[in-house]
């Protein structure tokens, strides 16, 4: 049974994104992930008319007769959404929480996938894997995923991004498209992501709040870390404190961006105050197309 307000929310996301998904995403969806959808089928003897560039030179040399590799384009992609639900996502100063932002982004991606007849799976994680829904097709499945995204109550509070990605990679048998929706406020995720990126198409989706880059001037506040529970009295009116926070936050996000760009992945960055969530996704897809076009 779905709570009425939850149902309303799902409907709102569905309606608000449907048009955009149809118009802006639909055409780009498969072309953005094309190639990944090609699956090797067989090697057969060359028949005149076959494209020369499909000839498998190794097999041809071994058998003495020309052979070609035949690929079958996979019509359906397997999209997996790995969404961070850790304590740090329960934060947001503009419009929505990071968790809500992550859920909405994931919902848009799921709708996009389902309208292109792709399978969608969902992994919810904190410091452990909280929920794993294997990829399946169909609108009903997507609605279920969105319900989980919005309503799931995680047990853990911390973050173990690397561990979640490694476990996901173990669970996936076929190369898939992975959207990793997280704030990346963790350590040790760089290697697992790079590792997984070798087999799967990984797209990091970074959700942020502007208060994570800049401390608002709010007098003295006892700040609690939602993941560790540690509380600290911070004088946000102090220029030195704010400057220290800004430079530390800038250094941290720079380190994160450097680690992401090393993996050659096309990352999406979204702030909680972003009004049009489809636009960054479309931009990301467009960038991928352009890169392939090169």
């Amino acid at each position, binding site marked *: 049974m779905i709570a009425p307000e939850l149902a309303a929310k799902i409907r709102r996301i569905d309606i608000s994104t449907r048009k955009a998904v149809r118009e802006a995403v639909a055409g780009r969806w498969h072309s953005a992930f094309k190639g990944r959808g090609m699956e090797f089928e067989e090697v057969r003897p060359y028949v005149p008319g076959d494209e020369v560039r499909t000839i498998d030179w190794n097999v041809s040399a071994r058998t003495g007769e020309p052979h070609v590799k035949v690929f079958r384009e996979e019509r359906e992609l397997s999209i997996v959404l790995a969404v961070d639900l850790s304590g740090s996502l329960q934060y947001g100063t503009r419009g929505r929480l990071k968790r809500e932002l992550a859920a909405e982004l994931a919902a848009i991606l799921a709708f996009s996938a389902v309208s292109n007849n792709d399978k969608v799976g969902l992994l919810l994680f904190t410091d452990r894997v909280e929920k794993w829904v294997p990829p399946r097709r169909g609108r009903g499945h997507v609605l279920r995923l969105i319900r989980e995204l919005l309503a799931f109550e995680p047990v853990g509070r911390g973050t173990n991004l690397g561990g979640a990605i490694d476990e996901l990679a173990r669970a996936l048998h076929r190369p898939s498209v992975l959207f990793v929706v997280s704030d990346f406020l963790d350590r040790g995720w760089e290697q697992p992501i790079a590792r997984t990126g070798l087999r799967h198409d990984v797209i990091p989706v970074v959700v942020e709040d502007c208060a994570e880059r800049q401390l608002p001037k709010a007098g003295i506040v006892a700040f609690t870390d939602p993941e560790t529970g540690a509380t600290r009295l911070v004088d946000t009116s102090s220029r030195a404190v704010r400057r*220290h926070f800004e430079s530390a936050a800038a250094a941290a996000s720079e380190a994160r961006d450097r680690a992401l760009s090393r993996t050659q992945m096309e990352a999406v960055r979204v702030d909680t105050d972003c009004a049009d969530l489809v636009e960054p996704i479309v931009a990301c897809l467009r960038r991928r197309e352009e890169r392939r076009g090169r």
Partner: protein
Amino acid sequence: MLSAISLLQWPFLLLLPLAALPWLGRLRWFRRTVAIHSRGDLLAQAPASLRTGTWWLSPVLRSLAIALVVLSLARPVLTNQESRTFTEGAAIELVVDRSGSMLAEDFTIGRDRTNRLEAVKHVATNFIRGGEGLTGRPHDLVGLTVFARFADSVSPLTTDHDYLVEALDGTRPATEQSESGTAIGDAVALGVERLRDTMQSANRDGHERVKGAALILMTDGENNAGDTDPMSAAELAKTLGIRVYAIGVGTRGYAPFPVHGPGGRIVTYQQQPVTIDEELLTAMADATGGKYFRATDTDGLKKIYEAIDVLEKTRVEQRVNTFHRDLAVQGFGLGGRDVPPLLALAAALVALDALVAATWGRSLGN
């Protein structure tokens, strides 16, 4: 001087938990201002500003102030006890015979045979200073008169007992022919005169500083010189309220007198009869309310002095004055430092807290 701090109304100390109130307030404020921030890791490294670094200052000041007020309610009182010893000593005049007959060696000190004068000196010294079972007379005025043919006041009545003992020690027997004789009457009269002078000057301004006067006469012979009749001297003592303790010094029967050869060396001893006018001495003692003793050896002499010691009591009075200081409103000294009144201290803490609250502590929810 004895000092102690006591809490006269200690049940007020039960209010002491009130001192925790500022901390509860701070805790409530903490709860109110607490906010979640996802970058707790970065905030944990944020430097403390003056305001966040001193968040505890106000509760500390307030708690201390409350504790001090509660302590003041419990009424701490510093009690000083000052005890003063007032002594009303007696005046004792020693009248010592130093006639030639005192050289008779019928006494012993320890194991050594000694003459009467030395024995008298020895025991009288112990009587004054204490020792060998005698308690001493530290609060008494003691004077010394010696006599042979003539009476001679050697030391006025004094509490400077060192001087007196020295004077006593310096007493030499009268060996000159011109000095020979025993002027008991003159000596007692002189001693009484000395006592009278002292008592008059000591008690001049109404205070009885000297209570009781006694004269201790030590002799080994009969009155055979001087102008004053011994009984008249005793009468004089009696009118002045002076008790005369007479001690006849000398063994019974015969006593060995040293015979000096040329150069002063003792060549031999000559047995001579002991002639003490015990009748006279007893009469003198009785007439004045004193007592006559006969000392035949050093031990006996000591016992006599013990008896006199008991008879001539010194009145020692201790007065205790107690002062109270209410520490809540009166400053006090603690470990050599002046501590202001507790309530003033509390007021100062409150003022300091107000100052902090009015300046940098304003946004700390004060």
